[in-house]
């Protein structure tokens, strides 16, 4: 039985995990290598690093962080935010990422997805889509949710899959950071349309929201960030609640041989 996944996302800037509101008022919350390992110990099924560095100089720093993380992390690591061209994919994977996620760059150049899938396999290409309901469509935005496109998220997700993406990371711009639940209509529409796993993102506030993402939104995985970093809950507590409600999440790894 395939288990619904709980994925922890960390924003990384210049080699440090940062936290803020809409990329403003960023403050340092720790070392990505240590935090990733800590979340694995708590039961995170996967880790996502979202690189929010602005400078090109940060590239080398990101690769170094990925390399050091991969040496101590034994659950999958996805890296997004740092992929601007097909040439960026190989170095990230070689540094230790298991998957890369592409967003703005794929909208600009959809071939990025097919090149990545051909060279490295669909399983390592995650199409990241940021969407908001507008004018009767789920309008896709790029550049951290700041630039509107003419793309509809459901159609774009299907196109990404056709190009070779092995997973869709779907973020509701309206719900992101609001902590009152994932955008379930968006999640379900995309999940019911594309034949690849969909990761619900944006809006996690309580364990009920994750349950709804799986049960109502038909998501394969749920992304969680702020409520963990703020210490409002833990991966273990979220998974315990999900288990109590009959969702077959992977048990937290107590008593393993690490």
């Amino acid at each position, binding site marked *: 039985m395939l*288990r619904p996944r709980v994925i922890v996302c960390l924003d990384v800037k210049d080699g440090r995990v940062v936290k803020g509101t809409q990329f403003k008022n960023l403050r340092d919350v720790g070392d990505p290598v240590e935090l990733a390992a800590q979340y694995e110990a708590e039961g995170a099924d996967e880790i996502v690093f979202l690189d929010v560095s602005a400078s090109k100089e940060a590239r080398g720093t990101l690769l170094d962080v990925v390399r050091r993380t991969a040496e101590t992390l*034994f659950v999958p690591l996805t890296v997004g935010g740092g992929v601007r061209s097909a040439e960026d994919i190989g170095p990230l994977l070689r540094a230790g990422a298991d998957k890369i996620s592409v967003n703005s760059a794929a909208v600009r150049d959809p071939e990025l997805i097919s090149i990545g899938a051909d060279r490295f396999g669909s399983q390592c290409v995650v199409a990241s889509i940021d969407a908001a309901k507008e004018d009767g469509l789920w309008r896709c935005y790029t550049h951290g949710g700041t630039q509107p496109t003419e793309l509809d998220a459901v159609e774009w997700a299907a196109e990404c899959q056709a190009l070779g993406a092995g997973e869709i990371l779907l973020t509701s711009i309206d719900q992101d950071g609001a902590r009152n639940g994932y955008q379930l209509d968006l999640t379900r529409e995309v999940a019911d349309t594309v034949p690849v796993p969909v990761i619900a993102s944006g809006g996690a506030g309580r364990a009920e929201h994750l349950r709804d993402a799986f049960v109502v939104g038909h998501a394969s995985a749920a992304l969680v960030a702020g409520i963990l970093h703020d210490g409002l809950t833990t991966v273990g507590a979220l998974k315990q609640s999900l288990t109590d409600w009959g969702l077959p999440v992977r048990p937290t790894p107590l008593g393993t041989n690490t």
Partner: protein
Amino acid sequence: MRIALYDYGAGNLHSLGKALEGAGADVVVTADWSEALGMQALVLPGVGAFGAAARALPDDRSGLRQALADGLPCLGICLGMQLFFETSEESQGDGIGLVPGTVDLLDAPIVPQMGWNDVEVGNDPIFEGVDSLVAYYANSYVCVPDDSAEEIAWSEYDGRRFAAGVRRANTWGLQFHPEKSSGPGRRIVANFVTVAQELVR
């Protein structure tokens, strides 16, 4: 012991390398087949696409196939396991042809199979100390050995039971990623190192 970790030139080798080193192995990452076959054991990692990886195999597969048949301990993971077979539906590239059987596309509403799935483990030393296993998968294809006696572990996806592991003499294949399956996965990697050490002693 010195273990060759073969590098097809694509993908993450760090976690697997560290898991092997954590079990006491001296890991040599190499893309040179003569060097790889000169080590005491060989690991074929599970990254990349079948065609690209098959192209990285030596043009003449016979030396590699013979080394494995002669007992070089080998662990193939995901794609690395699929390479033990002759061909894959994924690509026309030829595999090693060590294990008779086929590599079939998963026929399910959602492909690839991405995530953690239960694994029923058989009685094999590579699963020593691993009682219940939920392991990480990222695969679109599954291996179907002609001889089901070569299957050593099983999972089910969308109602289809498939081989999570195969073994032929000193060659082990795992469809899931032990190096991405947290503590129990690391134990399996360590078990391979232990078993390989005993075999070459």
